[in-house]
């Protein structure tokens, strides 16, 4: 298996006037090509920091990050990021929103436009290409945001609580949707979430982070007995509950 991402003893310390915050400590793991990894952990354990580091937006205090064997030093065009909100620009049409990334990278060509159109066709947004985001439902918007990310042809998708802003039902439908698209495009993905069920339903492996400073507490291989796995089907697998219990215990939640 090809390794796409490799983290080697990554630590991150934030400086603030009130002192230092150790967000991450000696985090090491790797992600294989085509894998879907979910990262869960108590709030404030540095999950989002981890994604920012993998994307190259943040430089770790120590340790190294490798993307396809290359040491990462600046925001990488190989990584595609999806945030909690879709952040479609309300002053741009859907087509123009989808082209934002390539426009910023000054890579717009007629072929790229065609690619955008064909993405929109494949994923049912073609009729909405000249509409504005406010005219789309939450699920469609999130799909448009994913296409925007896919347009720059990232080798790894980083999803930062990408479904958390949606209501529960939409969330189930959208995660099903996004999961199918990611699998169809054969992308590698890392999803950060605080929803254990969501993590199990989507992931090949679930990475549990500890309380701050975040360290890798456990890596669960999710193997479910079900065919044609999608998030909704996964939820019906008999092992689902056991994985839930296992991760819940690891999270060690106190209120």
């Amino acid at each position, binding site marked *: 298996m090809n390794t796409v991402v490799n983290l080697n003893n990554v630590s991150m310390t934030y400086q603030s006037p009130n002192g230092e915050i150790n967000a991450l400590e000696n985090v090491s793991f790797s992600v294989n090509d085509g894998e879907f990894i979910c990262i869960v952990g108590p709030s404030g354990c540095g999950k989002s920091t981890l994604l920012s580091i993998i994307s190259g937006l943040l430089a770790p205090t120590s340790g190294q990050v490798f993307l396809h064997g290359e040491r990462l030093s600046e925001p990488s065009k190989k990584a595609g990021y999806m945030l909690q909100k879709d952040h479609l620009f309300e002053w741009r049409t859907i087509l123009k929103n989808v082209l934002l990334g390539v426009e910023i990278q000054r890579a717009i060509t007629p072929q790229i436009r065609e690619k955008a159109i064909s993405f929109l066709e494949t994923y049912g947004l073609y009729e909405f290409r000249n509409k504005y985001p406010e005219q*789309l439902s939450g699920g469609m918007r999130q799909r448009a945001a994913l296409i925007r990310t896919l347009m720059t042809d990232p080798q790894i998708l980083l999803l930062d609580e990408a479904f958390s802003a949606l209501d529960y039902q939409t969330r189930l439908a959208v995660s099903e949707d996004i999961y199918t698209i990611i699998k169809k495009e054969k992308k590698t993905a890392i999803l950060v979430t605080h929803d254990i069920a969501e993590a199990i339903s989507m992931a090949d492996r679930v990475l549990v982070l500890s309380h701050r400073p975040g360290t890798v507490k456990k890596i669960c291989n999710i193997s479910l007995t079900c065919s044609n796995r999608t998030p909704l089907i996964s939820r019906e697998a008999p092992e689902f509950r056991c994985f839930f219990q296992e991760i819940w215990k690891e999270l060690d939640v106190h209120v």
Partner: protein
Amino acid sequence: MSSLEPSFKPITCQQKNISAEHAKYLRMLKREKIVIRSTQLLTLVLVFALWEILARTAIIDPFITSQPSRIVKTIEVLYNEGVLFKHIGVTCLETIVGFLLGTFSGVLIAIVLWWSKFLCQVSEPYLVVLNSLPKIALGPIFIVWIGAGPVAIIVMTLAISLIVTILEVLNGFLAIDHEKIKLVQIFGGNKYQVLTKVLLPASFPNIINALKVNVGLSWVGVIVGEFLVSKAGLGYLIVYGGQVFKLDLVMTSVVVLGVAAAIMYQGVVWFERFILSKNGLGQ
């Protein structure tokens, strides 16, 4: 309104053969609008009529209060002397120049302050002081430095509107969702792209708001400036009329001023609609 999602189409179709209830509701809305408009118009007519009647019946002294018919006559006299449009033109020109200068340089300075966090922090106390300082106090300084003339008036206008514009636009920039900026950075965008792809388009409503405030402030600046130095313009007519006790002239100028200011404000509203409809966002 014409662009609804296909899934909503059945509803649009239903709306075409409107139910009696809905038709009644729409008629009521329309009637309400007509009542409001006609009451507005009636109020204006009543005030002027009352003013005229009270003056004619000598209940109020038209020498002090003037009266609508005298205002019309004054406008006529000014027009026949060929100076009406000269005064209006001078004032409007000063206002428009001051307004455009204030808006453009205000937005530009706001961009610079956003770009350089250092400059922004350094300038903060100065902006606070300049913002709270009554700019009219600077009038005599401008006259001494620049000389009594239209330039001094424009500088006065600038002094009044500039700081407010800077603060308004800068606050708009700083209030933009940081994640939108992060999105551009994730795609490898530089600071200039953050500015052009996110900041400016996202601040459009803010900038329009600044424009609307600026229209009013520019008029204040110009009239104050004309009070202080000018030889022409509506502000000059007001001061001159007051000094020689020609209240007809003062009232006339105020009325003309009101109309001109309203037209200019409406111009900004039209501009806003034009830009919005160009981007397909008009509703």
